[in-house]
């Protein structure tokens, strides 16, 4: 029999030195740093380890060396397939860009029977139809929808209260299905609704066409009703009744709920989460405070509010982690989307965490009057008098003018996190978003000064908080791995 050689005969790493692949580091806490490679794989390291690696002195027999090699921070004489794999992973992260716009939001009406103070866009319920989308506008908007090359198209109906213009929803669904008979996209519909005016005909229609329902649930009854006033003061009761009826008609998983975080929410994360558990939801999205109020009006950095939100967020997250550790599977969706970026080769479609930004090319809004906005927040900004992100109008502009106009390309190009000051050297950049609308709204330019950006502050804290938690407890890491692969 031929001789077998021992492992040293195959290990050239000790003699060759190593070549660093692109990597970045940012502090994690007082002692540790987070290092990331180009594709967003991370390692927590000490200051000394960072120093040794960066100075080329890390010995090949060090455990850290093998971890860095395995995660494609370095290549040596043994292997260079890491370059191929890293390139593949970067391409995979960016691949969804080529699909272009997948989420198309139709504002069927601005009318609403709620009068939520945090809403910038609704109009009190009345009989006037001046705030309703017309068939002509819908037809033009659908021209743009099907001009998008995306193989998957989701049409989401928003308002106001979208169901107050149910004839328009029926019209758009029928027309989209008709066009899709030849366009052959993976077509889905979502109705965003407060469920208060949900009737059986609507449910039957939704069931027939496989339409999902997405509603608002801000927490326990007193909080929800305070956030979301309507005649009768029964928004919560209506929402819960609607959730039950919609689940019965459409199926449990075809009804979703989103919460809006307000100042009144900040002291009550557990009660809000408990409300979602009580209603048998599999998770909750602890959403950031909307800046389209105080912050925009004052153009100031609302650090105080941001700190309170982070306390709210982490109290809620830790409560959810404890639920999972005790055996009840429940997801926090913001964490799950970040974890997907950290722990998998895949990308999320959450617009706020996209870079290049998701405005226009991830999601786009067709307002009731035909104005095309780059995002839902862009529409809110316009309602407050700033039309920077109005990309055109379905009646006046074609697909090329809207998608290739300066109003969209400028913010996309300028805000790309991979090249802007403060982001390009940040280890967290592979997980973060560009958010030109937020920075324009709060600082007056698409990039903004990141140290003054509450978007930056918040996400840095979330990234650090998630890493600290999974580094400290392997069981938390397993929970996080599961979340990362669910969303």
């Amino acid at each position, binding site marked *: 029999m031929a001789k077998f050689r021992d*492992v040293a005969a195959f*290990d050239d790493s000790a003699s060759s030195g190593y070549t660093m692949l692109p990597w970045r580091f940012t502090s994690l806490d007082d002692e540790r740093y987070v290092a990331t490679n180009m594709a967003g794989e991370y390692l927590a390291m000490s200051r000394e380890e960072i120093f040794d690696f960066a100075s080329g002195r890390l010995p090949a027999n060090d455990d850290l060396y093998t971890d860095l090699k*395995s*995660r494609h921070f370095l290549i040596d004489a043994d292997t260079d*397939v890491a370059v191929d*794999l890293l390139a593949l992973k970067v391409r995979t992260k960016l691949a969804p860009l080529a699909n272009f716009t997948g989420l198309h939001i139709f504002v069927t009406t601005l009318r609403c029977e709620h009068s939520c103070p945090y809403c910038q866009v609704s109009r009190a319920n009345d009989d006037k139809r001046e705030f309703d989308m017309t068939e002509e506008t819908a037809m033009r908007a659908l021209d743009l929808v099907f001009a998008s090359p995306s193989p998957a198209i989701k049409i989401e109906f928003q308002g106001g209260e979208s169901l107050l213009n149910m004839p328009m929803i029926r019209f758009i669904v029928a027309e989209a299905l008709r066009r899709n008979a030849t366009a052959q996209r993976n077509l889905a519909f979502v109705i965003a609704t407060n469920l208060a005016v949900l009737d059986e005909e609507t449910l039957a229609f939704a069931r027939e066409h496989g339409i999902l329902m997405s509603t608002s649930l801000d927490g326990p009854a007193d909080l929800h009703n305070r956030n979301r006033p309507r005649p009768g003061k029964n928004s919560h009761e209506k929402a819960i009744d609607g959730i039950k009826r919609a689940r019965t008609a459409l199926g449990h998983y075809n009804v979703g709920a989103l919460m809006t975080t307000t100042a009144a929410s900040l002291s009550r994360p557990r009660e809000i989460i408990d409300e979602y558990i009580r209603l048998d939801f599999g998770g909750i999205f602890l959403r950031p405070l909307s800046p389209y109020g105080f912050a925009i009006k004052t153009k100031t950095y609302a650090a105080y509010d941001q700190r309170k939100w982070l306390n709210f967020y982490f109290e809620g997250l830790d409560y959810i982690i404890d639920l999972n550790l005790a055996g009840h599977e429940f997801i926090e969706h913001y964490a799950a989307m970040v974890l997907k970026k950290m722990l*998998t080769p*895949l990308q999320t479609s959450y617009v706020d965490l996209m870079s290049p930004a998701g405005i226009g090319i991830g999601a786009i809004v067709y307002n009731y009057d035909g104005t095309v906005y780059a995002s839902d927040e862009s529409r809110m900004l316009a309602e407050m008098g700033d039309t920077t992100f109005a990309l055109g109008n379905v009646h006046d502009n074609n697909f090329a003018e809207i998608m290739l106009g300066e109003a969209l390309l400028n913010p996309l190009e300028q805000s790309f996190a991979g090249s802007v000051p403060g982001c390009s050297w940040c280890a967290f950049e592979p997980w973060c978003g560009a958010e030109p609308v937020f920075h324009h709204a709060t600082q007056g330019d698409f990039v903004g000064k990141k140290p003054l950006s509450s978007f930056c502050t918040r996400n840095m804290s979330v990234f650090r908080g998630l890493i600290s938690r999974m580094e400290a407890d392997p069981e938390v890491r397993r929970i996080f791995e*599961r979340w990362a692969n669910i969303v």
Partner: protein
Amino acid sequence: MESGSPLLRLTTNRARPTPLRALEAFVYEGGEMPDGFGWYLLRSPDAMTRVPVGVPAAMLPAEFDHLADGDVVRLEPSRGGLRTLFRKAVPYNHFLLTERCNNYCLMCSQPPRAVEDGWIVDEILEALPLIDRQATEIGFTGGEPTLLGDRFIELVKAANSHLPATALHILSNGRTFAAGTLARDLGAVRHHDLMMGIPVYADLAHLHDHVVQANGAFDETIRGILALKAHGVRVEVRVVLQQQTIARLIPLAQFLARNLLFIDHVALMGLELTGFARANLEQIWIDPADYQAELAEAVGILDRAGLRTSIYNSQTCVLAPSIRRFARRSISDWKQEYMPDCTGCLAKNECGGFFSSAKIRYSRAISPITEYAT
């Protein structure tokens, strides 16, 4: 019919249609002797007198009792020999395409030989049209099948054409695909149900290269997998659980989930103690009881990432309960054996059992499961 060393399909059906009889060998097991078959194979010598005059006939030794209707054999009368190529009753038949290999794995169960064995390809090309078209799955192994180059592609094409309802599983180290052209040609066959089983033994190149005893193999294997997937060929990554692979099993699972999430299956396989595995036993052996923590974590990582994952060649009583649902009964029924320690075990029906070769060394944790956990 070719005289000399004919390749024949067997039948026990004395009512075979006349046009087929000349192409087949009749296995005589008593009763009336039918006419017209190309060959007659007899279970007892006294039947020889009943064989039609002038037709070749042979006695089947007792070790060929298993031969049955639909099997395909090579008769070698000059040597008094018979080789079974295909058994209809077996759910998985495999064909060794060549004994040559460019790896030299520490635990190889089929040690390679540098021989000119191109005749094997001709034989399989001849056999494929005779195989039962209802067969569930066949396999190509080696050696390293891809060293055959264009002839490898020819064999895959033949399997695709002659067995249009049969899955094809091919064991390869993947290295030959790194250059891209063979992967392109294999993808172009568009086989209806093909899986390439390719071993990856570590996340670190030198550790993989050590197991396969070939410098540079890791990079070629990974590039080969990328090329295959780029050309639409399904790939199963196979990891043998042994002393050299356990230390990096968890990082390997993370590596697969992060870099090769698009692979179609991961098989984590217990050792088969034949060939080099027996010679290198002390170097490669690790008691499965001693790697359950690593195995459970690795399976969890792969499963959470959505990768279809199986454990092969394992025994229920040794496996951590959390991963028993990933175990498959991978050892063919007729090869499956149990140890004296297994007497009284209630879990034999779900347990993969042992290769007969396991007698020389098996886990100290083998013990009968005598009651089910509630």
